[in-house]
């Protein structure tokens, strides 16, 4: 996998050691700002509480982090790629729909169908959009993420997948 991402610049929002390691090991340069070919957004772990114990503010915060910020970030990334006349790859990483509370269930489901939509809307911009919804955190997730944002997955877009049997 040494050359999967050779010459690519990748921005990773959110902390995930296995993914950052795999993307770097695949040859990409990690950047925190400026031009990038790849944008990976990793959801921060959500608190899990029964819906009736969530305040509206907490509910809204969950949707904001799990859905709204991700959509807005994808918009920004795609606009920058179009301005450059270049394609790119977006990857969202988070937990499966039913892994946390109702806020997460709503956000993750919405994100999944958003991925399927943006993958088609931006297909002819050469921008691919995929998601991994999983409980796994190890090297397989890192490698799968690196593969999906590489040209080896050039024909994979609008795809939502997990890693393990419980995803």
């Amino acid at each position, binding site marked *: 996998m040494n050359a999967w991402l050779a010459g690519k610049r990748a921005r990773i929002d959110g902390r995930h050691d296995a993914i950052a390691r795999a993307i770097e090991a695949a040859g990409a340069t990690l950047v925190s700002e400026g031009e990038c070919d790849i944008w990976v957004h990793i959801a921060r772990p959500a608190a899990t509480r029964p819906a009736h114990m969530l305040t509206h503010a907490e509910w809204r915060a969950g949707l904001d982090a799990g859905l709204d910020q991700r959509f807005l970030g994808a918009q920004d990334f795609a606009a920058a790629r179009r301005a450059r006349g270049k394609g790119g790859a977006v990857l969202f990483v988070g937990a499966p729909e039913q892994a946390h509370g109702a806020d997460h269930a709503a956000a993750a489901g919405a994100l999944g169908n958003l991925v399927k939509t943006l993958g088609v809307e931006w297909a002819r911009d050469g921008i691919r959009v995929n998601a991994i919804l999983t409980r796994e955190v190890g090297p397989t997730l890192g490698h799968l993420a690196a593969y999906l944002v590489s040209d080896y997955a050039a024909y994979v*877009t609008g795809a939502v997948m997990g890693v393990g049997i419980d995803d």
Partner: protein
Amino acid sequence: MGRERELPVPAHHILSLPPPYDMPPYPADIFAGQTVLVTGGGSGMGLAMARAFAQGGAHVAVMGRSIERAEEGAAEIAKLGVRTHAMSCDVRLPDAVAAAFDEAEEALGPVSLLANNAGANFPILAEDISSNAWNAVTRIAIDGTFNCSTEFARRRIVAGQGGAIVNNSAQYIWTGFPGDAHSAAAKTAQATMTRKLAADWAPYDIRVNAVAAGFFPHATSTAGRREGGIEPLQNMIPAGRTGSIWEFGWLSAMTCTPLLGELSGQVIVQDGGESLRRSLMMPDFVPPRERADGPWGWR
């Protein structure tokens, strides 16, 4: 990414293109010492899977209904420098499958990787599907995947060693496939089996995944009777192109590598967005019955 070949899409569109065939995503020894059995491996998508495993150093047992086609495929794969063995087998028959595994293991050693690709598919109206045709298409894919996977798993469990299975499913499994009812049923069964077999065999370190493949043209593709071949069809796919057969082979083999050693129970759609293309305003609906001569026509 870029535009390295002439495609029938507008010039300002940007397409994502895969690396060339001679640059597989994994090292040439990633499957060294292992044997893969590929059903329907003599041609088409099965041959692409077999080549991809061979690019990772696996020995390849090529299984086909026709021994001639299996032998032709095996000869192609052998050019990659791995050992091969061609066999004829009807995957619908459990005893024949067991005998084929015996033959493959006799020739090449224990089979630790399995690619379930055997399938038949042709456009036809639902009301015209004979019981023979229904049985053939559904049982090759559904019973064939079950027979080969269970034979494989029993052997791996006895050996106390894990393994990996990849199933060739299709992009239309979650949407229906009007004009192809037998294949619609068959390919979704493969995908939903994938998840359950993965759960059943997780304790034995046997992983099971599927690639839900879009349109990857090859010599034996069915594309209906269409003037001009598949070139014009590239423009109908969001990605702006049909798939390159080797990128399907690579993803299939990738799911079986230790790089994705925890991946199991997954159905990965690889279709350039083909199954997702829709809008509220679309061209007039034409019932399959009335598009006999169109793309994917059944006549």
